[in-house]
């Protein structure tokens, strides 16, 4: 029946494209989580009345975040070509898409991290300081665990956005479902290919959201 409904779909390429999308999304999500968390914590701790309060560092970090957040992703990929070449050794293929995906998503996620951290009760941080906690203890034992539900739902939103970004990575030959839908489906007027690619993307997004929600609910003891 599938053959009749989707006559032009080459299942082998479809599976390969799905694999590429999942590969790009998962690696970039993991790195974005770490990088965005680090930037978000710096933004938080350098804001006024915090332990590293520093107007200059806060302003600089915040500016960099805003600049990278405002560059359209498709432009970012092209702008980052020299960096990609340096980091990955090539400017084509699935791996070449990763630097752009990460640099595009990490500032976005850093903002969400900052919002979650700001929601932590100031009294809890004060209590930890009153017990003689070091800043590193406060980061790993107070800030991260206490904002974990927010951090996790933020990374879920970011991962879903990254699935969308991977479609654009097609312009540097990274492959993936979005690229397949555009090249094989839209440009060759094979609507069934576009539809199938969309359905698979939808399933991936649903699964990401479901896993994200489940883990968030599990860690939230408030």
């Amino acid at each position, binding site marked *: 029946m599938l053959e009749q409904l989707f006559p032009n779909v080459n299942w082998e390429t479809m599976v390969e494209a799905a694999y590429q999308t999942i590969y790009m999304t998962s690696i970039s999500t993991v790195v974005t989580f770490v990088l965005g968390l680090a930037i978000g914590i710096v933004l938080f701790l350098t804001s006024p009345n915090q332990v590293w309060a520093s107007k200059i560092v806060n302003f600089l970090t915040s500016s960099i975040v805003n600049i990278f957040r405002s560059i359209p992703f498709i432009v970012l990929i092209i702008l980052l070509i020299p960096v990609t070449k340096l980091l990955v050794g090539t400017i084509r293929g699935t791996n070449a898409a990763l630097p752009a995906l990460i640099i595009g998503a990490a500032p976005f996620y850093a903002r969400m991290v900052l919002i979650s951290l700001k929601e932590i*009760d100031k*009294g*809890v941080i*004060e*209590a*930890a*300081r*009153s*017990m*003689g*906690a*070091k800043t590193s*203890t406060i980061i790993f*034992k*107070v800030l991260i*665990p*206490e904002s*974990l539900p927010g951090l996790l739902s933020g990374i879920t939103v970011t991962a879903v956005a990254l699935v969308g970004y991977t479609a654009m990575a097609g312009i540097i030959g990274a492959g993936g479902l979005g690229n397949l839908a555009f090249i094989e489906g839209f440009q060759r007027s094979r609507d069934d290919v576009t539809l199938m690619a969309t359905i698979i993307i939808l399933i991936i997004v649903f699964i990401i959201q479901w896993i994200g929600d489940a883990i968030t609910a599990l*860690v939230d*003891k*408030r």
Partner: protein
Amino acid sequence: MIQLNNITKVYKTKNGEFTAVNDVNLSINKGEIFGIIGYSGAGKSTMIRLLNGLEKPTTGSVIVNGEDIAVISGSKLRAARQKISMIFQHFNLLWSRTVEENIAFPLEIAGIPKGERAKRVDELIELVGLSGRGKAYPSQLSGGQKQRVGIARALANNPEVLLCDEATSALDPETTESILELLLDINKRLGLTIVLITHEMHVIRKICHRVAVMEAGKVVEQGAVLSVFQSPQAEITKKFVSQISDSNETKESIEQILSNYPTGKIVRLTFIGQKTEQPIMSQLIKQFNVEVNIVHGTISHTTSGPYGTLIVQIDGEKENVEAALNMLAQHEIQTEVIEHA
């Protein structure tokens, strides 16, 4: 134990400078429960945070346990803080940790090995009366139970000083009583020095040995709780003392009696210690042939003995009333004739 010398704390705000604490000198003895009372904005929150270096004074020195908290920083300050613990109005527990894990937190900070930590946590849970609740999360506890976790957490590293920041202000009266009992018990059993800030006089009455009254950044009065209750000097202290001895209803009834019986005298009598247990009123009536009408009476217990107030209307021949008042004064009972409610 604690010595504050010429402490001033000035905050720079957008609208200029604000002096939160203004030239304060205090000394707190080892093993005592010292209360600081004041309305919000009086500077008491800043004061208590000076004692563990969460705030640094603009000038002056804060000697706790022989170290100047105002000067030390880094690892030295962190080590000192392990011996000066604190409990809070809103408990400030980590919601992501269970009761046990919350109590273990300061032990983790102090680098206590895991096995010892578990043993100590069990002792503390027992001490604050939370046996069986160790695996619960803070969101599953009542306010009073949360404060018990806060107290257990504060006691984990065997501190010398316990700072209480409005520790009972978010609790209902009954829970407040039980938390105060617990603090009193800890003070007696462990010989811990407790410094607390509050805006409620009954907290001072119930557990403090000495009290300092703060207004607009200054300490306007300080002394033993009983003597402050018996003869408050500053206007604000009188207000705080009347929180306990008079209610609004008393004021109304005094007003009414004053207008209904303009002849007699309304007198507030303050008794302390053994005087509260003597039959002075009946002596008064027999000896001087006066009418005594009781308007209001209370007896409160402080850590250093009972304290009572009685508001009475004394009526009769002018000389007799005068003589009765003299007799009261001879009995070392503080008398105050009230002319306006």
